[in-house]
């Protein structure tokens, strides 16, 4: 087991270095001189240019620059935003809870709907239920989620007035930032109605962000369940006279869930990139919106740092998924 974890960990190092190389080259590939790009319209004098060059290390050879960049990254130093002058890491940490909160609720939504739908479709194979689950899941899978967001907003916020259009909480509430998670902070504040306002702001974005993972989970659960249901031990269980629901929930589902858990873990990438679109539509103050706005403002250190952090999160999650899979399924652990 340790050997498996070690082997898997050793694969992460080149991937991490590759991603730092990518984000390192990113800022250098931008057409024009980086310092002039940073200075923007105002331009810089020759002395100031040399001074900034020395300060930012641009006068050193590339490999030295890369070395400094990677050591900085490993210490959590991602440079400062050109606009706010704040460290990129600090900005990221203040905004990240909002994205986690959204992604977490979206994942819950996706699992709560996708899993039972997939099980149901597999059990009722070939019926109308199966076909409609599969149709819905293919539609969900093909959904342009930014449009889905607008459509839901149009129906539930504009026409029916059930949910708010954007933001994390009503402007009438002033919630102290304790944990960064609005659901918890609004509860802690003790203000009446704050929590329900936070919940109502979360509903639509979570549904939108959870749609594609939900479709993927439903499809995966269905095919995995179908495979398990055709196994001999299921027939034996049925022949023994065990209640049908018990065969499905206790005997089949347990084994069918192994690949599904992997798929759920792999949805983190989809959730984080989907958050870029969802947060833009719902004006959700998370890292997705922050990244897009930074691209618009040509705030390159933020773009560079943000992409690096998101990629690292995904690498770590994929690693954890792999290791969990190895623990659950010995066949994977011992292969190669």
């Amino acid at each position, binding site marked *: 087991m340790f050997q498996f974890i070690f082997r898997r960990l050793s*694969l992460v190092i*080149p*991937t991490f270095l*590759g*991603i730092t190389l*990518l*984000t390192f080259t*990113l800022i250098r*590939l*931008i*057409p024009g001189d980086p310092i002039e790009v940073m200075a923007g319209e105002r331009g810089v004098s020759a002395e100031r240019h040399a001074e900034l060059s020395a300060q930012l290390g641009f006068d050193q050879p590339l490999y030295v620059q890369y070395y400094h960049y990677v050591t900085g990254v490993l210490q959590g130093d991602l440079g400062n935003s050109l606009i706010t002058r704040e460290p990129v890491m600090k900005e990221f940490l203040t905004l990240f809870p909002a994205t986690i909160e959204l992604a977490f609720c979206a994942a819950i939504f996706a699992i709560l709907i996708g899993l039972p739908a997939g099980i149901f479709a597999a059990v009722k194979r070939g019926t109308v239920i199966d076909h409609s689950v599969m149709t819905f899941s*293919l*539609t969900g*899978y*093909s*959904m*342009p989620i*930014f*449009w*889905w967001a*607008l*459509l839901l*907003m*149009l129906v539930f916020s*504009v026409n029916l007035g059930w949910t708010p259009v954007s933001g994390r909480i009503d402007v009438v509430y002033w919630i102290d930032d304790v944990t960064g998670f609005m659901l918890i902070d609004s509860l802690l504040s003790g203000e009446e109605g704050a929590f329900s306002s936070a919940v109502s702001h979360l509903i639509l974005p979570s549904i939108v962000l959870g749609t594609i993972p939900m479709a993927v989970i439903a499809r995966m659960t269905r095919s995995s369940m179908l495979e398990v249901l055709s196994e001999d031990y299921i027939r034996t269980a049925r022949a023994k006279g065990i209640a049908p629901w018990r065969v499905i929930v206790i005997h089949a589902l347990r084994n069918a869930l192994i690949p599904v858990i992997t798929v759920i873990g792999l949805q983190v*990438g*989809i959730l*984080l*990139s*989907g958050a*870029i*679109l969802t947060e*833009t*539509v719902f004006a959700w103050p998370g890292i997705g919106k922050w*990244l*897009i706005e930074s*691209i*618009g403002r040509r705030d390159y250190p933020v*773009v560079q740092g943000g*992409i690096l952090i*998101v*990629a690292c999160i*995904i*690498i770590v999650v*994929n690693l954890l998924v792999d290791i969990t899979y190895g623990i659950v399924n010995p066949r994977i652990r011992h292969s190669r």
Partner: protein
Amino acid sequence: MTTSTKTSTTDIPLTAPVPMTPFQEFWHYFSSNKGAVAGLIVIAIICFMAVFANFVAPHSPSDQYRDALLLPPAWLDGGNWSFVLGTDDVGRDILSRLIYGSRLSIAVGLVAVTASLIMGILLGLVAGYFRGMIDTAIMRIVDIMLAMPSLLLAIAIVAILGPSIVNAALAISIVSLPHYVRLTRAATMAEMSRDYVTSSRVIGASPLRLMFVCILPNCLAPLIVQATLGFSSAILDMAALGFLGLGAQPPTPEWGSMLADALQFVQRAWWVVTFPGLMILITVLAFNLMGDGLRDALDPKLKQ
């Protein structure tokens, strides 16, 4: 086998059925999947619209009818049958813009898929054929690319190169490259151990001939499926980039950027928002349906 002793119709010739040509066989499996056929029909219609946009579209996509701003679809009160799906905030016909938009989406999909297919096949063949250091190097890069969500990587690339439709297409083709490399490499490695490859090598076929004439044609089935599914993600990513303002720029009739323009009119004019997205959904769904059908028809493991 023969049951003719019992039947009175002795004039039926007892010959084996003519074996199906590969294409007939493919079509037999493909056409039994209703979803796939529906997808194919929708794609054919969209391609027709894209090619003949000049003749199909009732108006020019950039003509602004100043006396018909935000006109609702024709079947609603205040609608006008010369603008079937209504008009946008500067009086442009939405139907015509959607039709011209299909041209752009199909073109971008075609360019992105072709580019990444060619690059992916080359890299995958080289990696699978030569193995060793080259293989490790290529696969490491592929793994790094797969570690990033495709949209994020595409955004990063467009952020460097600057927002434009060409750069977006380039970004999408780079992003989808890893899948083709992996597929081609896996298929090449499987074929390499086959006898026919060994015998060709013994006869003295050059590596190039082995790679492109012997191995490649036998690796095509999964690539065709992936290319079809790649089309749908190319169109989806293109629309997402357009929506974020990183793809086609505003006056261009592109589905995603049409949606971005319409954001401020959500409350007043639902049709400006609804139709472009519906178009994206239908197109992407059609490609996904066809891709699933192709996979079933081309994958020998699934055939009965």
